[in-house]
């Protein structure tokens, strides 16, 4: 399944309450995602809470948009990405050096 970075803006800042309420909010999102086969892997949030970079596995960009609107989350931009792991190359170099 393709992987995507979804960029979102929260002009008022993103506020997820701590404790049980926050956990519930996140789980609701996760649950709604499953309807479209979308998996929220994790997110990076800017310090001021105004911008998030969310990593998703999803069948299509449309599936991401659909779950976003169900979860009332904004979408600025969707980019398809692949993993680049610097240590993977480091290991390869180590093997070659041997």
């Amino acid at each position, binding site marked *: 399944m*393709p992987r*995507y970075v979804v960029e979102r803006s929260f002009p008022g800042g993103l506020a997820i309450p701590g404790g049980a309420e926050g956990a519930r909010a996140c789980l609701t999102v996760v649950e709604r995602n499953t309807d479209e086969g979308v998996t929220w892997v994790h997110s990076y949030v800017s310090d001021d809470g105004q911008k998030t970079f969310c990593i998703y596995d999803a069948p*299509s*960009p*449309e599936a991401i*948009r*659909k779950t976003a*609107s169900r979860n009332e989350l904004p979408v*600025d*931009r*969707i*980019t*398809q990405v692949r993993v680049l792991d610097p240590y993977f190359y480091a290991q390869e170099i180590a093997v070659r050096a041997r």
Partner: protein
Amino acid sequence: MVVPAVSASAAAELLEREEELVALEDAFAATRRGEGRLVFVSGDAGIGKSALLRAFCSRQEDAARILVGSCDSLRTPRPLGPFADIGARVDGSLGAAIAAGMATPKVFDALVQELRSAEKPTVVVLEDVHLADEATLDIVGLLGRRAVQLGVLVVATYRTDELPRAHPLRIVLGDLATIAGVLRIHLDPLSPAAVATLAAPQGLDAEDLHAKTAGNPFFVTEVLASGNVDVPATVRDAVLARTARLDDTARGLLDAVAVVPQLTELWLVEAIAGDVLGALDECLDSGVLRAEERGVAFRHELARLTVEESIDPHRRVLLHRAVLAALRRPASGRLDLARLAHHAEAAGDIAAVLELAPRAGEQAAAVGAHREAAAQYARALRYADGLSMVERAGLLERRAFECYLAGQGREGLPDLEEAIACYRAMGDRQKEGACLCLLASRRWCESEMTAAAAAIDEAIAVLEPLGGSPELARAYSAASSFAMNEEKVEAALAWGERALELIDEADTEALVYQLNTSGSAELLQARPEGRDRVERSIELAEAAGLEVDVGRGFLQLAWIAARTRDFEWAGRLAEGIEYCTQHGLELWRLYLLAYRARMELDRGRWEDAADSLSVILGPSTEQPLVRILALTVLATVRTRRGDPESAPLLEEALSLAAGVDDLQHRAPVAIARTEAAAYAGRSDLAAAASDDVLALALERGAVWVSGELAFWRWRAGIVEACPAGIAEPFAVHLSGDWRAAAARWQELGCPYEAALAHADADDPDRLQEALDQLGQLGAATAAATVTRRLRDRGVRGPRPSTRRNPAGLTSRQVEVLQLVADGLRNAEIAERLVLSQRTVEHHVAAILDKLGARTRAEASAEAVRLGLSDPS
């Protein structure tokens, strides 16, 4: 005589299935509240689907009425087999409807009536739907779409290990994926722990057992029942080890039961194996066979296949012969032609195959099981060496026709060619011409346009010397339809007149077809009387029960409505989709969904468009044009939203359109690619994508296609004169009059184009408005451009007025400059042009900038030099 199942196998079959049982019970509970469900239970062979259902049904026996139907593993299944099973068990009209060979919608009505008749809630179990015939799958689809309202629990099982990519069941599953009330339960293999529990009493090596059986419950059970100390390497060895422990009479009986797929009725057992009740008890006691309501069956189909393969070939033929003879005198008195044909072939009885297979084909065709009908005719053709040429040609023609109806038209082409050769050899010119005409139509359907045109020319050449005939009328009609599809409107109408002269009013089918073609041709020329003709063809077709022609009528109207942005027609589209769904016109339904998606895109409902497309773009949609339409709309949605992965869709669409020369295939691809090139600012790519298609569209007078292409070429930065004779809103837009264009687009109901027109304004208020409109549409790509323009005013995207005016001034700026040169002040200019004073200030600043002038006086002098103003 019903023997309780052997405890070891029952235990293995139900281990680790509690969750699944609960899911089924939840579904049943919903049904009892009046909300029906369709549950698909899937898993590999031997995973325990039937066992799960047996356990579920035995728990609900008192609370529910349970109706079971199985699809059979005859090489060519009985049409509507599972519903025939159910019909035989109940009193209502269902059995009669199937026996009478009624069409699928009628059978479905009878089934619904039956399901609603009971006082207790009903559970319908359909086993092995991966083996189902086409008509059965149609009904499963209908059951799924209405699952909730029907208030019935339907459970259908299928094997995942026998479901290749293009399997027809996948279409049904894909279609039902998003329907409420349709659930799926997938059965996984047993865990190592579960296998260990089972292995313990016999002291078997649990790890070895799990590894060799991969946790397959059937395999595990067979190993346990074989009593071996070592685990056999294959499931086949395990089954044979188990049967080897039976005595000779019992093994003989087992062989007889094994040549009959699925269930063997008791009367049939007696007829082929004699009085063997004692042996039967032994087989049941050992758990190899299972007693069913109407007969006996192997505990599992895998075991039956294993035993059948192990029978010595000569003995197998003798057994099939005995079954064939017995089935000719069935206890019910009703011949089961599909079963008879199967055993006739297996018995090597050629005369019987030639007698029974064509009859089985006719029966299957009558209920709409076209794939099965084609297979029965093919079966007869394998043994047709001894037949006369007429008989052979007849079979070939029928097989080709059923292939076509089953959506496998290409497979039928060689048959048609062979039939034509037969008729030519016999000197039957009339039939040769008629067959050539058919071949032409089929080739057309397979997108082989050149070959189709050659075949229709040949057909007309063969038929014309024989004088006016229905066959010649059909050939003219086909020529007319080909021309219409290529949008050669004049030729289409001319051939159509010739056809209509010959068509007898009583030949509704021919009349309906030609009315449809001629009407569509007229609509392509924007002649409104064309609509009346197409509507009349739909009316006549509906009255005469010509379902395919009704579908074709809706298809043409949808095509032209989408092409000409005639959105008023949308209500009728829903009606067409419903009609095609009800009558199993799957391909036509997909076309209508694709055109609907196009219209949704044009009406600014992009999310709806994407939803329609997910249905069409399932793995099973092979028809090139449907895919092209769907791929291009989805790519355009992605491009406009700024989403990734539109390029691969466009590449696939381009490759599907390769080698086809009509606008229907090529225009959507060219338009979508030119639009994408426009956003990328690549005039070179826009030209490459659209040069020849634009020329073709202009030649054919396809004003909307040429308009849209010219529009995106302009936005991509191609500098050229606006072509004459393009659709009016595009012409207005290209003339640079954004205000009139925006109004025209709004009136038409195309918000995206309207927003793009607003975005051509210079006034920041207008730009902000355009930005809001684009934001509402989710048009991130165009919105980014407008945002940029708002940010650095004065720097603007290419617009035709900019290019046509000297010094890169827009037409509005030229107006302002002329007034400046006339000596007017900003406030006066604002009043004259009905603009805000601030906007005028922006314009003046931009004008000075572009002209390289420092003052208004310098700008006025420059205006005179450019010939924009008279020297004062």
